[in-house]
C-alpha cells in the first residue's frame, strides 16, 4: 500500500461543489477520502498544504508533443515533464506528427512512449483522415480500440464538408468527440496574422475572422445534423463564440476551448514582427478577445486548453512569414489563469478549476476531473501566493517559444500528483 496524505489545503472540487479546508488521502493511486482531519497513518507521505489550494488534476486537452518526427521541438518525455511542471496531470496529444498518427500503431507508439516517461498521463487523439489529407477516413475504430480518446485533423483543417459529416457520424458509434480546428483555408489564403489595420500596416497578409466563423457554423450544423459530439478548438472570434452559445442553447452537443493567449492577448502583440505572437488561429482584435473572455466566463467556452505548440529556436528565429505557427503553454497556463483570469475577476477559482479539470475530462470522457472517492489519484497542489516571472530558460519543455517571457504571475503548481505519485515537487 502506498499512500499520500495532503494536509490542511483548501480543497476545491467543482465536480462535487466542494470548496473547504481539509485533508485529502490518496491510497494506491485512488482518491480514498476527504475529511476535515485524517489521523496519522503508517507508511504515508504527508504533504503540508496549508495555505495552498488542492484541486483535481488539471487536464490540457490540446497539446502537440511532436513525437514522432519533430523530436527537436519536443518529445513525449519532455512534454509530460513540462505538463506536470505546470500542474497538468493529463494531456491530449494532437496527431499532426510525422508520420501522422492515423492508425492504431501510431496510437500505441504514443502510449508506449508516455508509459516510459514519468509525468502526466497522455491521451492521444487520432487523425480524422488518412495522413490528415482530408480525403478519406482514418482507422477511427481501431485507433479508439488502441486508446485514442478523440479524432482531429488539427493543423490541417477538414475542408471537405462531406468528409466532416461522415467523420462525425462514424465517430458517434465509438462515443468519442470530433475535435475541430475550424478554418476555411481558401479564406485564410496565405495569411499569417489577423486581418486588420495591423496586418495592413505591417504588410502581412491577413486571415479574416470569417475563415474561422464559417467552419464553426458548418461544424455546429453538422453536429446537429448527425446528433454527435463536436469539440471546437481554440475559438478566437466574437462571432464564433456567439454561434457556439446559440448552438448550445438549442441543445447541440458542443464543447469548446479558449486558450490562454486568445484570452489575454490581441493582434497588437505581433507588432515588430514578433514570431512568438504567431499562431493559428491568430491573435485577434480586442473585441474578439473580450468576446472570448465573455464566452469563457459564461461557460460557452467550457475548456481551458493551451494548444501547446513547441518549435525550435531556429524555426522562430526567422522572418514572420517564414516562422511556424504556435507557442508553448503548459508551464504558463495555470499561472495565467490564476493571475489574469481569477485575479482580474473574470472567473472565480472554482470556475477556473472546472475549466481546467472537470470540463476537459467530460469533453473527452477522461478519468479524473474529480476528487470523489474511488477516482484516480491525480491531484494538483497550487501555491496561490507565490510571485514569479516567466523565464523560458527554466522550462522543462524543449522549446522556448512563449510570448509571455518576463510576465509577472501570481500562483503556480507547487506539487503535481499523478496516480498517487508525486511527479512534480516545485516548491
Amino acid at each position, binding site marked *: 500500500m502506498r499512500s499520500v496524505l495532503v494536509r490542511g489545503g483548501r480543497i476545491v472540487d467543482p465536480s462535487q461543489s466542494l470548496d473547504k479546508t481539509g485533508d485529502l488521502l490518496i491510497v494506491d493511486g485512488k482518491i480514498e477520502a476527504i475529511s476535515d482531519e485524517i489521523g496519522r497513518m503508517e507508511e504515508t507521505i504527508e504533504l503540508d498544504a496549508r495555505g495552498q489550494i488542492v484541486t483535481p488534476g488539471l487536464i490540457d486537452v490540446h497539446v502537440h508533443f511532436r513525437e514522432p518526427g519533430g523530436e527537436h521541438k519536443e518529445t513525449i518525455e519532455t512534454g509530460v515533464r513540462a505538463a506536470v511542471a505546470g500542474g497538468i496531470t493529463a494531456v491530449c496529444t494532437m496527431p499532426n506528427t510525422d508520420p501522422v498518427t492515423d492508425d492504431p500503431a501510431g496510437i500505441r507508439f504514443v502510449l508506449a512512449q508516455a508509459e516510459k516517461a514519468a509525468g502526466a498521463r497522455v491521451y492521444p487523439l487520432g487523425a480524422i483522415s488518412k495522413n490528415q489529407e482530408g480525403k478519406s477516413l482514418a482507422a477511427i475504430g481501431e485507433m479508439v480500440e488502441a486508446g485514442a480518446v478523440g479524432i482531429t485533423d488539427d493543423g490541417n483543417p477538414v475542408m471537405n464538408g462531406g468528409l466532416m459529416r461522415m467523420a462525425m457520424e462514424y465517430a458517434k458509434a465509438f462515443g468519442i468527440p470530433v475535435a475541430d480546428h475550424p478554418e476555411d483555408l481558401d479564406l485564410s489564403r496565405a495569411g499569417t496574422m489577423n*486581418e*486588420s*489595420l495591423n*496586418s*495592413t*500596416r*505591417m*504588410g*502581412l*497578409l*491577413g486571415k*479574416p475572422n470569417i475563415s474561422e466563423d464559417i467552419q464553426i457554423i458548418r461544424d455546429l450544423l453538422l453536429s446537429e445534423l448527425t446528433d454527435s459530439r463536436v469539440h471546437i478548438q481554440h475559438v478566437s472570434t466574437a462571432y464564433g463564440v456567439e454561434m457556439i452559445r446559440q448552438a448550445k442553447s438549442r441543445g447541440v452537443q458542443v464543447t469548446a476551448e479558449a486558450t490562454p493567449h486568445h484570452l489575454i492577448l490581441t493582434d497588437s502583440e505581433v507588432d*515588430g*514582427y514578433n514570431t512568438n505572437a504567431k499562431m493559428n488561429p491568430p491573435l485577434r482584435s480586442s473585441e474578439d478577445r473580450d468576446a472570448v473572455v465573455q464566452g469563457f466566463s459564461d461557460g460557452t467556452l467550457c475548456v481551458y486548453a493551451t494548444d501547446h505548440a513547441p518549435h525550435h529556436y*531556429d524555426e522562430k*528565429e*526567422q*522572418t*514572420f*512569414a*517564414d516562422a511556424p505557427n504556435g507557442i508553448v503553454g503548459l508551464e504558463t497556463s495555470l499561472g495565467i489563469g490564476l493571475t489574469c483570469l481569477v485575479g482580474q475577476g473574470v472567473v472565480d477559482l472554482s470556475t477556473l478549476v472546472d475549466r481546467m479539470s472537470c470540463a476537459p475530462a467530460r469533453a473527452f470522457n477522461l478519468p479524473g476531473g474529480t476528487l470523489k472517492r474511488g477516482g484516480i489519484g491525480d491531484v494538483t497542489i497550487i501555491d496561490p501566493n507565490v510571485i514569479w516571472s516567466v523565464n523560458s530558460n527554466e522550462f522543462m519543455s524543449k522549446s522556448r517559444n512563449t510570448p509571455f517571457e518576463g510576465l509577472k504571475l501570481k500562483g503556480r503548481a507547487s506539487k503535481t500528483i499523478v496516480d498517487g505519485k508525486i511527479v512534480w515537487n516545485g516548491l
Partner: protein
Amino acid sequence: MGGRAGFFEGRYFLKPNLFSLGKDLVGLEDLSTDQIVTVLDTAEAFKEISERQIKKVPVLRGKTIVNLFFEPSTRTKISFEFAEKRLSADTVSISSVGSSVSKGETLVDTARNLEAMKIDMVVIRHGSSGAAKFLGERIPSNVINAGDGSHEHPTQGLLDALTIRDHLGSFDGLKVCIIGDVLHSRVARSNIHGLIKLGASVGVCGPYTLLPADVEKMGVRVFSRIEEAIEWSSVLNVLRLQLERMHSGYIPSLREYNQKWGLSKQRLELGSDELLVLHPGPMNRGVEIDSDVADGQNSVILEQVTNGVAVRMAVLYLLSGGTPETAESAKGVN
C-alpha cells in the same frame, strides 16, 4: 525648384540629434516629419554631385557596404550602388541566386558572416515583410531597407516625396492618389506614411480585391473608380501590377485591369493639366499605364530615378553619422 534656401542656416544647428535617423532605416512609419524633411533637404544638397564631371566625393571613404538582394531588382540595386560609389564607399552586391543564400543558409547566418568580415552597412531587399527590421535587430551595422515584402520601401517613398516637392514646392493641400495593387505594395505603404506626415492628403484606388483591410484607418481616402481618383488628385502614383496577381485570382485579366484601372491619356484629361504622374517602375506598359502617359508631359518617372540616387546618398550619409549641417562641406570642392 524645391531646395530649402534656409536649410544650412542656424535653425537646424541647434538640435542636430533630433534629425538623426538612428541606426537603421526600416520604414517611414518610424520616422518623424522632421527626419523625413532632413533626408529630403540633404538629398537636395547631394543632387548636384551627380551632375559633375567627376561624380565622386569622399564622404564614405573607407566604409564597407553590402547590398544584399534576396529578390530580383535592377533599378533599386543599381541606384544604391551608384549612391554608394559616388560617396566613395567600398561595396559588394550579393544576389540570392548563386550565393550561399540559395543553399539554405538562414538570413541570420548570412548577416553574421558578413558582419564577421567587418562591414559598416547593409542594404537589404527581401521578400518577407519585417526582414530589414529583423536584420537590424541582430547586427550592429546600419541596415537600410530596400524593400521588405509588402511592408515598406522607404527610399522609394522618400524619392517620390522629393520628386513631388521638386515640382509642387510644398505638400500642404496636395492630394496624392496611389493607384493599383496596394495590398501587396511596399511602395504604397511608404508613400502613405511619408506623404501624410509631410502634410499631403493621400488616396488609394484599385479593385477592392487589391486594397488591404482597414486601409482607410491608415488615414487615406478610398476610390474604387480611377476616374474619381483622377479628378480628386494633384499627383497620381501608379503602382506596378504584378502579373502573378491575375493567376492568383485577384483580377480577371490584365486586359480588364487596363480597361478599368489603367491610366490612359483619355482618362488623364479628366484631371488638371498640372497633374503629376509617378511610377516606381518597372512599368507594364499597356497594363497599369499607357505609353503615351508614361512618356507624356505629366510624367516625372525618369526624374524619380534621378532623385533616387540623391535620396539614397542622403540616407547613407545620414545613417553613417553625417549631419545635415555638414552635408554641404562633405560634398567637397566642385
